[in-house]
């Protein structure tokens, strides 16, 4: 057994908040050996990122770390700033979540990698640095290293940017790599490639990796050992096999249980009633963002046709930029349609006036993606929920209060929350408020645009249950937009798949998941990481085989 690269003892992190020290993480003990991947798993606010950042001394100004962190025997807590600067990049490197913001947009990729090299090896010449940078870019399997070297971050795709980030972090052969949610900002198919790359590099370079993530599928794919964190405490630690197959702590068990699994949910079947009219029907709809200045016109959706009937949930799946949100917004008239026809409850909304739209909108509800931005921060949530009712002149005063309280009950929030402001609520609670507002007018059509992408898995599971219950009760038609196939699987009756603005496949849920007809759909399904190490390994091997 090799000596561990890094070892922590009673590591704790505290933050100075409003005149007192608040604990963010405490008593964290772990070690990483060469070639090993330790996954730190937990929900947001569990202290997983903060404890990893404290290894580097990269806490915010109001934070402090205690305990002991030993990097190959050297104590890092309380080390001099100069020494810590040396260690960063050279011994410990970090891969950040969002490569677009972590890379400096005004410098080329090549410049940024050479810069990191020159800081740590001042004697290196420009030519040597370039040579090394090119070999690094080749190592992360970028198709054309020379071209990538001279590109600016915005000229690369998301996956390529993340590869460039990895190349930069590997530039000084670090002993330890901290990957902070390295694939969260990426699409599933790209995510699968980046995970493959990380695994290969880890085997090749024999460095230790600390993988911070909330995605159990990613963990199953990469991790050798797992540390589960909750509220700043380490709850359970063990090998991947132990954690996934024999979790001891109840929190780990609930965490695993709330991860939606592809193809595991109960069969849901929906029969289109005869001679029923669709609530929403789209026929050959195209949406074009017009030319603005030098930016050419962009076709976000073309020839999209589908129908949703009362009581049905249609899942709309696709990767970022596939036009799924565009379709959802066009369905309620937030975007103008350039071709085709959209009928909402029998009325045409392509080319409808604002006044006509306002009437139709009273029969639709929308749950937006980001609960932090979709509620007005200066309005108490009771007012946000009641606004559609007030504007539709359905209720006022005491009656409105009554309805708002009933709505809060129905989304399982305490009634006294009506006077609270959005920032006093957690993400999951805010999203419940979003639902309450969307169903306040008892709509015929509910559009949910990635409502769970900002939520933790356990919160997401409760949210999806709630949405299903409400849909059962109120029988509205629902267009559920998501990038996550597993989420769509748990609630949709039918699934539609979009790619590059086109609807490539639409069909019954079981047919799409078990017998996809389209090449892209197949690729999408095979790329979804499964929260089970063995199954994930099989899928990985199958994928590698199909590539050859």
């Amino acid at each position, binding site marked *: 057994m090799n000596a561990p690269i890094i070892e922590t003892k009673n590591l704790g992190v505290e*933050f*100075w*908040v*409003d*005149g007192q020290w*608040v604990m*963010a993480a405490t008593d964290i003990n772990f070690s990483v050996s060469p070639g090993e991947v330790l996954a730190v798993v937990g929900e*947001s*606010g569990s202290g997983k990122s903060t404890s990893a950042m404290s290894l580097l001394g990269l806490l915010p*100004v*109001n934070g*402090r770390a205690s305990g002991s962190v030993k990097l190959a025997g050297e104590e890092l807590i309380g080390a001099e700033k100069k020494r810590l600067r040396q260690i960063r990049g050279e011994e410990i490197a970090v891969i950040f979540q969002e490569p677009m913001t972590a890379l400096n947009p005004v410098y080329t990729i090549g410049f940024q990698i050479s810069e990191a090299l020159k800081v740590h090896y001042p004697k290196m010449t420009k030519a040597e640095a370039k040579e090394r940078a090119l070999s690094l870019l080749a190592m992360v399997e970028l198709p054309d290293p020379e071209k990538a070297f001279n590109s600016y971050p915005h000229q690369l795709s998301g996956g390529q940017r993340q590869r460039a980030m990895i190349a930069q972090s590997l530039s000084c052969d670090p002993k330890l790599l901290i990957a902070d949610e390295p694939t969260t900002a990426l699409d599933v198919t790209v995510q699968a490639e980046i995970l493959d790359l990380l695994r290969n590099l880890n085997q090749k370079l024999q460095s230790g990796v600390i993988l911070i993530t909330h995605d159990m599928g990613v963990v199953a794919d990469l991790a050798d050992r797992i540390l589960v964190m909750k*509220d700043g405490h380490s709850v359970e630690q063990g090998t991947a096999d132990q954690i996934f197959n024999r979790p001891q702590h109840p929190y780990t068990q609930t965490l695993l249980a709330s991860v939606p699994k592809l193809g595991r949910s109960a069969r849901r079947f929906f029969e289109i009633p005869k001679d029923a009219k669709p609530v929403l029907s789209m026929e050959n709809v195209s949406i074009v963002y017009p030319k603005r200045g030098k930016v050419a016109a962009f076709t976000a959706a073309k020839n999209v046709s589908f129908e949703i009937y009362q009581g049905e949930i249609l899942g709309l799946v696709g990767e970022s930029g596939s036009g799924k949100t565009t379709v959802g917004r066009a369905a*309620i008239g*937030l975007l103008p349609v350039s071709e085709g026809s959209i009928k909402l409850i029998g009325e045409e909304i392509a080319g409808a006036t604002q006044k006509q739209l*306002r009437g139709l*909108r*009273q029969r*639709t*509800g*929308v749950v*937006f*993606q*980001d609960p932090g*931005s*979709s*509620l*007005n*921060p*200066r*309005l*108490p949530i009771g007012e*946000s929920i009641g*606004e*559609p009712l007030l*504007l*539709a002149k359905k209720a006022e005063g005491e009656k409105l209060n009554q309805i708002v309280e009933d709505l809060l009950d129905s989304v*399982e*929030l*305490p009634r006294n929350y009506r006077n*609270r*402001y959005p*920032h*006093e*609520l*957690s*993400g*999951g*609670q805010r999203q419940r408020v*979003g639902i309450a*507002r969307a169903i306040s007018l008892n709509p015929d059509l509910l559009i949910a645009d990635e409502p769970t992408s900002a939520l933790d898995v356990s*919160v997401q599971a409760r949210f999806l249950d709630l949405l299903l219950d409400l849909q059962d009760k109120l029988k509205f038609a629902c267009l559920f937009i998501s990038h996550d196939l597993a989420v769509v699987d748990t609630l949709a009756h039918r699934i539609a798949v979009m790619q590059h603005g086109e609807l490539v496949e639409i069909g019954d849920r079981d047919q799409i998941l078990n017998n996809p007809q389209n090449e892209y759909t197949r690729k999408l399904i095979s790329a979804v990481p499964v929260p089970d190490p063995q199954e994930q390994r099989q899928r990985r091997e199958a994928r590698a085989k199909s590539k050859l």
Partner: protein
Amino acid sequence: MAKKPVSDETQSNREISIEQRETEGLSLGTIVRRRFFRHKAAVASLIVLFLIALLAFTSVGVVIGGSGKLVVNQETGRLIVDGLRIEGWWKYNWYENYPVLNSGGTPTLSLWPFQIGEHPFGQDTLGKDIFARVMRGIQQSLLVIALVGTIATLIGVIVGSVSGFFRGRLDSLLMRFTDVIIIIPTLVLGAVLGRTFGGNAVSLGILLGLIAWTGLARLVRAEFLSLREREFVDAARVAGASNARIIFRHILPNAIGVIVVNATLLMSAAILIETSLSYLGFGIVAPDISLGQIISEYNEAFKTRPWLFWYPGLFIVLIALAINFVGDGLRDAFDPRQRRLPRQGGAWQDLKKLIAERGQK
């Protein structure tokens, strides 16, 4: 049934992360007020401003209405200001000449031994009481500040929000109009218009207000451009809200931080503009008085009678500083990212540590 809310409450607490914990259970107004009152300089400035205003308005009294010109009272034969005069507790007027008491009119105010005397801020060559003049000057300056602040904020907010919200042609039109106002120097425009429309505080305040809104309009427009893309605006639109409701109920309250802060900065700039205009002779003209005008009137006596400048200058600086500090306090209070930290790190602490280490060696 009684048990359920409790479990919901603990559930909700579980979901609240560290960042949110500190704001639990507080409304935004409370947070802003608390943060503001923690800002000691801002609170002190607010008190100073209030005391200055109290002193200025009660000491020499006010004149309401009238032409503001000096007329002779037929009964007593003394000069009075046209309009409704409410007397204050100070025995002298700002427009009458009194016998010069101290040689050359030096101030009678002394700190040790403490005494106020007949003319605490001194007298000019004609025997006018400088204390009364300065108090009247402060009144006029504060009036100008209030008018400029209100008018410029109102126009700036309306122009900025309309062009930021509607964008397109209306936006270009309004912004080009703003540019036209910006490129004309405020002093020149103020001087020309001030001459034309008479030299009292009310008209000057209104005029300056009509010129000074441009910066605020641009800031508010920028704020609206970013806020209108937020999802809650879409959510309001889906709920059936009209444009006016979206502007006033949804976007404007979120831009209030920028507006309040900029308005205070505008007001402290206004006192300086008023002072410089009056100094140039275009602002408030005799027989009325402003702080700038006092300095301008005596500018040839700078060496022989310096006290004629001390007091108006002191109050100009005091008022401008106090308003700036209040603005600072408001900005910090409205900015949620502002956190108070224990002193650690930073250049000063590094230096201290370095010295301590040297000492040990």
